[in-house]
């Protein structure tokens, strides 16, 4: 019976070990994210008014860089020899920031409710640990 109380912390440690140091990529840090939240609310992607101008596709689609035939006739994103140049003539490579797992700040929308859901789930687990129906 006592061993069961170790299961949840053991899984937690195992999963956190997987998460530590895992890297992906992101294009903005927390400060920029905080600043970008307001503009995102104004420039809603669910605009009900004007039809947004159709932008030329950059990703997959008719002008996909993966297509053997570039149907749009667009030049590839990084054409050879066409990179913008710095002052001394060296090409400027696009910067891609590496993203990482980060801690969720309490300022997240609905953080209190999320805490409540988690606590409820934990209480349920504790109750079932102490007293399992039909067991």
């Amino acid at each position: 019976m006592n061993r069961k109380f170790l299961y949840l912390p053991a899984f937690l440690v195992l999963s956190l070990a997987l998460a530590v140091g895992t890297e992906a990529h992101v294009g903005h840090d927390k400060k920029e994210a905080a600043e970008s939240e307001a503009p995102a609310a104004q420039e809603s992607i669910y605009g009900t008014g004007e039809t947004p101008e159709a932008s030329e596709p950059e990703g997959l689609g008719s002008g996909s860089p993966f297509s053997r035939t570039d149907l749009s006739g667009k030049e590839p994103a990084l054409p050879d020899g066409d990179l913008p140049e710095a002052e001394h003539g060296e090409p400027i490579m696009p910067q891609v920031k590496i993203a990482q797992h980060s801690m969720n700040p309490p300022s997240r929308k609905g953080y209190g409710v999320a805490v409540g859901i988690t606590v409820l789930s934990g209480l349920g687990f504790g109750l079932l640990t102490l007293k399992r129906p039909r067991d």
Partner: protein
Amino acid sequence: MAKSVTETIKERLGLQLLEYDIEEHANSLRYSLGGMTLTSFVVLVITGILLAQFFVPDPERANQSVHYLVDQVYLGWFLRGVHFWAADVLTVTLLLHMVRVFFTASYKKPREVNWLVGVGLLLLMTSLIFTGTVIKWDQEAYEALAHFLWVAERLGPLGVPLTEEFAQGVPLLTRLYMAHISLLPLITILLLGLHLFYIKYHRLSPLPQASEPPKVMKFTRHIAYLQWSGVGIVTLICVLALLIQPPLGDKPVLGLEVTKPPWQFVWIYALENLWVPFLIVAPPIIVLALIAVPFVDRSEERYWKQRPLAMAILALTLILFIGLVLWGKFTTMTHSM
């Protein structure tokens, strides 16, 4: 009165059919790993349905819609976190389940078909994790898809359905989204049903070292145990989602290869660093080896101490897998496709 209501409901719903005898050792952590994996899958389906309300499967807006969900939608960050961590927890419990099945030789007669169904489920979960990684359409997603298409283009006619050539003008991202929310979950649920049927049909595999008939209990007691472990899994997922935000980048810079894949795939990244064609060669070799297991190991022995070769292969495989994951995590890319 309460008892008569309960009895009435049981009779109307046929719940008394669940009160059949099963082996008592089912109520142990190692024999419930499959059930925990199923719990994570259910969480993924529920959160996936909710996430789909906010996702735009168009290459121009996919990444933006995920950022909108995380930054603007009430509890959107938590929803995405639960979905992400449920996938990670599922991977861990699924792999532990596979190790347990191999360790206890539960793939042996008469359970060979269920092992094969399990291999099918492993492939489906891998595909779901891959497509889920791609549809958020950041740099990591783009490079994952680029590697996938590199392999698909080298498979000749077999790879055409997996490329844009199959449906020109339809974004591949949209097709992958369809696969992620429809085709792959549908096949997964069918195979899960088959998997559970065969567990019921062949009964739970006996303890390898048991010399006497197993003790039995009612299946409803096992359901209670699975409820407990399932709530534990849900709690773990919620804690992770509450604390740790999954990574999410901006729209990709096309033509660059600078990211590493998620940990579930970083082992093949390490192999690719050794020799790029491993991308094509390694997965079919692994799948064929898994399929061959119950047909190569046909002895009746199931106790691990009496199976030194099998245990050596298991240990070697685990060491190799963990080693490749660690090496892939810390190594620097030395090639470009």
